């Protein structure tokens, strides 16, 4: 890793320089909700945002995406991709992208996801947890890789970690904006991280979690929550690691059609429907439980399928709390 410092007074120039690498998207606040939007003026950015409603996955795995277009009865791929800079990703969202990478870049790679990923610069930014965050329990509160640049807040600027060759090039081309990191900066960085570590209010204990959840398959707790759940699928839409999609062909006119994919949710009844109306997750209980198992699946190479961002809690209309459900399920094993 290489470290440099971006003094506060150079921030604006640095931000503007990013436009050379593509359209810049950053978190902005609109009507009480944060979201990633195209930004020209750094004054629009909400640097201290907690979380956006839709995670950055929307740039790579889009809510609605035309994958193929029919020309003369044949499919042609629809791969126009604009270079982008995603500015201000939190560590948990960077981890979320890494989990999506595992699925979408695994052979055979998804060409849409791959191309967008390759053409996008990722700039991370440090954050302070709120009452929903539990990324620290999952080890996703600090990103060691998966970004080009990562900005850590200092009292008088930013400590910048350079995570890739491209990140190095960006810093190189704007060399005059950066300074060497001083001992004082290091002390400030350390102090910030320590303060942050203490600020987490929510915790998800890990010991034996995956096995205990598996053992608690018939726990009444699943049923209790499945009855409260509205099956709206919000938690799937906002989750940075949920990536089920449905496919549909649509005729544009009498001669041309498109094949589109859209976000799908495992809470929908037809998610598991097969021929002859047979459904392998027929009840809401089956579907509710499936989501929790999917998020808590432990892959030795990439960890859990949840990064503790707290979105599913914040945006659940039934106020179901992810950590509480898992804790209760585990607690029911006595």
């Amino acid at each position, binding site marked *: 890793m290489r470290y440099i410092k971006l003094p506060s007074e150079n921030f604006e120039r640095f931000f503007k320089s990013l436009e050379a690498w593509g359209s810049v998207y950053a978190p902005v606040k609109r009507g009480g909700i944060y979201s990633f939007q195209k930004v020209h003026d750094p004054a629009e950015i909400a640097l201290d945002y907690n979380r956006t409603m839709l995670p950055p996955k929307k740039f790579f795995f889009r809510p609605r995406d035309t*994958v*193929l277009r*029919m020309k003369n*009865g*044949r*499919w042609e*791929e629809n791969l126009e991709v604009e270079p982008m800079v995603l500015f201000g990703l939190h560590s948990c969202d960077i981890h979320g992208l890494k989990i999506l990478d595992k*699925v*979408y870049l*695994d052979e*055979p*790679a*998804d*060409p849409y996801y791959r191309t967008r990923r390759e053409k996008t610069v990722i700039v991370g930014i440090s954050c302070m947890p709120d009452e929903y965050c539990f990324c620290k329990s999952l080890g996703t509160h600090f990103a060691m890789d998966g970004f080009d640049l990562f900005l850590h807040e200092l009292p008088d600027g930013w400590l910048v970690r350079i995570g890739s060759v491209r990140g190095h090039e960006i810093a190189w081309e704007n060399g005059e904006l950066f300074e060497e990191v001083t001992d004082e900066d290091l002390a400030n960085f350390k102090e910030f991280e320590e303060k942050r570590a203490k600020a987490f209010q929510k915790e998800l204990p890990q010991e034996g*979690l*995956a*096995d205990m*959840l*598996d053992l608690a*398959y018939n726990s009444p707790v699943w049923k209790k929550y499945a009855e409260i759940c509205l099956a709206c699928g919000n938690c799937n839409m906002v989750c940075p690691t949920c*990536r*089920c*999609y*449905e*496919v*549909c*062909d649509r*005729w544009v006119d009498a001669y041309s*059609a498109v*094949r589109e*994919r859209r976000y*799908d949710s*495992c809470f929908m009844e037809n*998610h*598991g*429907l*097969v*021929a*002859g109306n*047979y459904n*392998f*997750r027929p009840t809401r209980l089956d579907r509710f439980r499936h989501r929790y*198992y*999917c998020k*808590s*699946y*432990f892959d030795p190479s990439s960890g859990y399928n949840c990064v503790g961002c707290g979105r599913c809690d914040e945006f659940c209309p039934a106020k179901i709390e992810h950590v509480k459900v898992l804790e209760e399920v585990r607690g029911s094993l006595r």
Partner: protein
Amino acid sequence: MSENPYQTYDARILEVKDLTSREKLFTLRFVDSKIEDKFDFRPGQFVIVDIRGFGEFPISICSSPTRKGYFQLCIRKVGRMTKFIHRMKEGDVVGIRGPYGNGFPMEKMEGSNLILVAGGLGMAPLRSVLWYAIDTGKYENVWLLYGTKAYEDILFRDEIIHLLKHGEAMNCSVKLAYEVESPSCIYLEQGFSDKVCKGVVTDLFRGEEFDVNNTYALICGPPVMYKFVIRELLDRKLSPGRIYMTLERRMRCGVGKCGHCVVGTSVSMKYICQDGPVFTYWDALSTRGLI
């Protein structure tokens, strides 16, 4: 050519044959000879059929890779897409991508006995194994235990009757169980009294002996069938690792992306499209929701 895994390739329907009132057999070949030459698969794999502008659906390949120059799909008419393809004729073109899935471990099973247990449409993927085994001659004995509703529902009826008559010469013994009585069935039963009976597929196990250390069982049928067939095999002390079954789930992508076919829990999650559709009974014991 693009490396897009969602792109499908033109395949021409060479022949359409009615197998029953619900199932048709489609014989296909890729229009582009380069694609045709490259297309290889193993029994138990499936393809995704693309009716451009209308949708896609997964279908097992029911012919054997030993027979080159074409491949066959046995398709039951159950809904929108399958109804669509049932209206298609010789010469029509569909899109195909694949083959997908793991297929049966044919090399690993060489030299062993194979017990194929088929129920209804489950005959389709097992027909690929059956002809592969007969064509290569690399397997000790092959039993096909086939359970069907009625005489009219027997898939590949001519082939089955041929094997009832001449199977032994090819190290292949076929047994058939039917549920609904009819003159044709009774006639079959009279002709092959030791091979055809009224009942369900598990009845066909009666009196069969096999060497559990040198036998593999391959099962495909409706979900309810698995439990009973597996119990029958376990009673005879066949190891869970020697019992293979092919499963069916809703599929969209076929390549491990769309998430529709995922089953399991926090300790073991499987993609039916990539980790399967062929699984061992041990996989089912260790992954909830597989069967």
